[in-house]
């Protein structure tokens, strides 16, 4: 871990490859949870690594590299998110059209997805992120609070709200009211 931090601090191409091979897939999964679209997630990971190498001299090695990278990914995502929001505010007409066509695309992709995944995709990003951190990465409340820089109480209330929304989907879908089979979960 220390070696990789050292190499990252040097900021070279080998460091890029090493970071990408070590953390690429995991970060991509985080990106997949944050972004609605998988190609956005792929781009986000690419940008994250580029920015990580750029800011590598400032990485003090206090946290685990993955946590540091996740923070960068998160900031980049939020920046893009805000930019998009600003764009849609400024150009309501074009924005609405663009948004409509985009959501149509997403809807098309969603139809092939599981209804629960579709429900997750429709959730706001903050809920999607928290669900990912909590149930996919199995993080504690305190860790999530540190990663997302909100209070622990906020984390809890977000989990609560996200679960409540998902519960509605599960209740409306008869196949989800039964218990999940354990083998299927383990195998994945």
């Amino acid at each position, binding site marked *: 871990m220390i070696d990789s931090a050292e190499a990252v601090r040097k*900021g070279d*191409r080998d460091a*890029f*490859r090493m970071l*990408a*091979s070590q953390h*690429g*897939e995991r970060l*991509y*999964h985080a990106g*997949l*949870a944050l972004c609605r679209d*998988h190609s956005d*997630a*792929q781009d986000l*990971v*690419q940008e994250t*690594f*580029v920015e990580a*190498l*750029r800011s*590598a*001299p400032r990485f003090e090695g206090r946290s685990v590299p993955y946590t540091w990278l996740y923070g960068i990914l998160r900031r980049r995502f939020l920046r893009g998110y805000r930019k998009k929001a600003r764009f849609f505010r400024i150009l309501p007409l074009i924005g609405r059209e663009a948004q409509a066509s985009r959501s149509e695309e997403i809807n098309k992709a969603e139809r*092939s*997805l*599981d209804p*629960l*995944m579709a429900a*997750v995709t429709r959730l706001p990003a903050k809920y999607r992120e928290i*669900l*990912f951190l*909590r*149930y*996919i990465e199995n993080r*504690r*409340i*305190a860790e999530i609070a540190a990663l997302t820089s909100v209070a622990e109480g906020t984390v*809890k209330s977000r*989990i609560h709200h996200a*679960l409540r929304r*998902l*519960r509605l989907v*599960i209740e409306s879908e008869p196949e*989800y009211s039964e*218990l*999940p089979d354990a083998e*299927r*979960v383990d195998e*994945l």
Partner: protein
Amino acid sequence: MNCKRVRVVLFDYRDGSLSADDRKMIESHLTACASCREMLEEETRIASRLRVVFAEKRRAFPFQAEALHPPHEEFQWNHRVTSIQRRRFLKVLVPISVGAALVFMAFLIFRPARLRTGFYAPRASYAAGDLPDPFRDWIERRMIIIIEDKNSGTFERIEANRNGIIARSVEKRGNR
């Protein structure tokens, strides 16, 4: 311990970050209260469902490691790509536009008399070879009058301003 308080710390209970006493209290409440138990089970249920659907999404859109490229060799680590591009653009555009503006201004001021119109146009007429001095003309409100005598072929050149005649000279036509 009532349900409301239990539900606040239920997430912490799952994390295992409660003290042993609190844990015991929660556990005794959970054995007694069906609705809180149900809540905990439901979270577990949703969590395992989520794991399944997230894994399905990962399988549907796998990570493409080969699509990641390291930045270009000449990449300047200390600067943003955008600012480099902007700087390169300015480096070319600014000198060109400043130069063009200077050339145009110089032309406006020092252009030959025959191309003069408007503000810097001569009030009467300039004798040939008389290089214009627009600033002096302008500041002194100098006026040059040239009177041609067709019989003798001479020009009388009179320079005057508001105070009167400054200079007066007679030139031959051949001097033009």
